[in-house]
């Protein structure tokens, strides 16, 4: 594997329980050799570049009430004021006022907001990346209606262009951009896997069909760590009788361009999927169990493409729910109690809140909701790329305890989710705390309980 590493200074550890970088833990990470002044300028300019009316309105509206801290799992578990969501973009608020707002020249002329320094940005790297999963819970508590999470994403644009991204995140993002998959799931690896899985599970997995109604995609984590998900997808597609395919020119739904803040890489990754779907004339593109992939393509895809997409984009849970409704997806009853962990980007910020619950209802489980649940559910703590950042582990484990308590309190036998990134975070947390619960994939649970097939 290491032979294919793009970044030789920080080689990826692909065999570890979590994909990460072998040489982690430099306090402030920097990429490239760039003078500090240039770094700052790049950060500010690229932060501002993608600004628009709504971001500016958000920037202007904060009254510093501090309520957002209460919604943030990083603050809730540590009580450390620096994790107050709006504080995480403080240098960029300053930059906005100075560089972009309606009174920008006024601020510059009187030097009312001092220019941001590279030291300040380095200091904020932890706040913008390590301690924000972009889960968007803070956006809902804000009495001014500021979508703080969207501002963090914009801040990441600036940080990425300035080369101020945590190593691991940078490394996987760079790898994704250069190889087509952040975690080494290159087309060749993917093809090998499909062949191997088709043999092992004696199932037909169509690849590179010229025409198909449905184009399925996968996340790197699934391909590399949870290949059963690929099998599950194939089983379900077959069960509902879909005309479907995988394509080597567009299978990787993971978008570390988005997570790291590199807007160019984000676009490249998304365009591969869009082009592939168009190439095979797909009517529906099915996104895998992956949170940020949903946000990246379902809600940002068309905007990167520049016009409405000529196909539908649905999450696999939505796809399953549709077929439960149409009667094509017939499931066996599972007589267990289940609690559903809402992946932030799919439920809270994605709007696909009821689909997984409809599928669970079809499985006949007893659904015990967490408190709070659905759009207000607590994040697992691994989203937004945080799970890849080694130095953030201690913090992430603290946050994860919140999640464990929440699930334990439901008394449900099985935790279920529909995001492989959440699942990976849970697996890692389970191992760390020697917790007695294992996160399950909704997709795999459905595939295991298809009517008329042996489990």
């Amino acid at each position: 594997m290491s032979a294919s590493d793009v970044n030789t200074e920080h080689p990826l550890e692909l065999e570890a329980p979590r994909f990460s970088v072998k040489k982690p833990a430099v306090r402030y990470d920097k990429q490239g050799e760039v003078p500090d002044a240039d770094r700052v300028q790049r950060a500010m300019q690229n932060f501002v570049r993608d600004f628009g009316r709504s971001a500016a309105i958000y920037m202007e509206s904060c009254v510093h009430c501090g309520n957002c801290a209460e919604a943030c799992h990083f603050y809730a578990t540590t009580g450390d004021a620096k994790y107050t969501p709006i504080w995480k973009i403080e240098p960029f608020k300053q930059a906005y006022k100075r560089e972009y707002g309606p009174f920008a020249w006024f601020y510059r002329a009187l030097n009312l907001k001092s220019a941001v320094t590279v030291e300040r940005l380095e200091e904020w790297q932890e706040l913008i990346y390590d301690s924000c999963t972009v889960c968007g819970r803070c956006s809902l508590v804000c009495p001014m209606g500021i979508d703080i999470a969207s501002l963090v994403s914009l801040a990441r644009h600036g940080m990425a262009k300035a080369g101020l991204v945590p190593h691991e995140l940078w490394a996987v993002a760079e790898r994704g951009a250069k190889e087509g998959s952040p975690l080494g799931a290159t087309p060749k690896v993917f093809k090998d896997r499909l062949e191997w899985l088709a043999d092992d599970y004696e199932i037909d997995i169509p690849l590179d069909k010229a025409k198909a109604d449905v184009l399925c995609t996968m996340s790197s984590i699934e391909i590399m760590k949870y290949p059963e998900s690929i099998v599950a997808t194939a089983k379900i597609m077959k069960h509902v009788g879909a005309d479907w395919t995988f394509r080597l020119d567009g299978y990787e739904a993971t978008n570390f361009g988005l997570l790291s803040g590199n807007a160019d890489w984000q676009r490249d990754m998304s365009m591969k999927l869009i082009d592939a779907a168009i190439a095979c004339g797909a009517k529906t593109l099915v996104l895998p169990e992956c949170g940020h992939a949903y946000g990246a393509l379902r809600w940002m895809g068309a905007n990167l493409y520049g016009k409405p997409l000529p196909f539908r984009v649905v999450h696999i849970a939505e796809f399953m729910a549709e077929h439960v409704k149409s009667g094509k997806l017939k499931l066996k009853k599972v007589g267990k109690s289940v609690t559903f962990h809402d992946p932030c980007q799919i439920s809270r910020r994605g709007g696909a809140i009821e689909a997984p619950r409809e599928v669970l209802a079809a499985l006949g489980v007893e659904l015990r909701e967490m408190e709070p649940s659905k759009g207000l559910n607590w994040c697992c703590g691994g989203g937004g790329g945080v799970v890849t950042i080694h130095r953030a582990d201690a913090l992430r484990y603290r946050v994860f305890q919140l999640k464990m308590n929440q699930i334990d309190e439901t008394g449900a036998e099985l935790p279920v989710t529909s995001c492989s990134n959440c699942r990976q975070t849970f697996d890692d947390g389970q191992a760390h705390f020697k917790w007695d619960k294992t996160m399950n994939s909704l997709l795999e649970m459905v595939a295991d309980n298809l009517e008329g097939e042996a489990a």
Partner: protein
Amino acid sequence: MDLLSFARGPGMTWAVTIFVVGVLWKLAGLILLRARRDLSEARTPSAWTGLRAILTRSWPRRAFVHGTAFSEVLGYSFHIGFLFTLVFYLPHVLFFEDVFKGLLGVNFQKLFGVHWPYFSGGMVNFFGAVAVAALIALLVHRIVNPVKRLISNFDDYFSWLVTIAPLVTGMLAYGHVGAPYQTLIALHLLSVELLLVWFPFGKLMHTFTVFLSRGTQGMQFERKGATL
């Protein structure tokens, strides 16, 4: 020209002018920024229903009540106290009616058939006291609470000052305490003018932008069917 004449005359004219220029400058400067149309396929047929957030975000969701109750109660106390003091005190009403007539060319009373309602001086004083007490408590909270202390800047403290100043000077003038009445009323007017002049440049602009930001989030989230 004495202090009161300045405060009632050119002082007020300039303050109102700066206020109007500043507020519109900022609002136009925000609204005319680039706004890309969202091309993704909407989940909700009409995102306009998201504008309900302008109203619904006025109180916290149940999940957030516990952590925010203190700020919410004080915030409401201040806002209600301030609003009632501002809008339902007869001397203020007379000013607003004059502005109304000056801008629309018609008497408020003639147009609506009723006089702009107002409270007795004692009631207004009570609301003013509520607002002042809430502001003081909020300031203490801002200084004592680590989160608020960290995220606060000059704007927060200065805006606090220019907000409490008219309340305090107004109540001193009402009670005729501490200085000749003309001085008190002049200070009251000057403090109002300071408030008006500072208004567009600081967080006080949230008076207007709260509708824009809540509405923006409301519509953006609503079209996705996201939790609002």
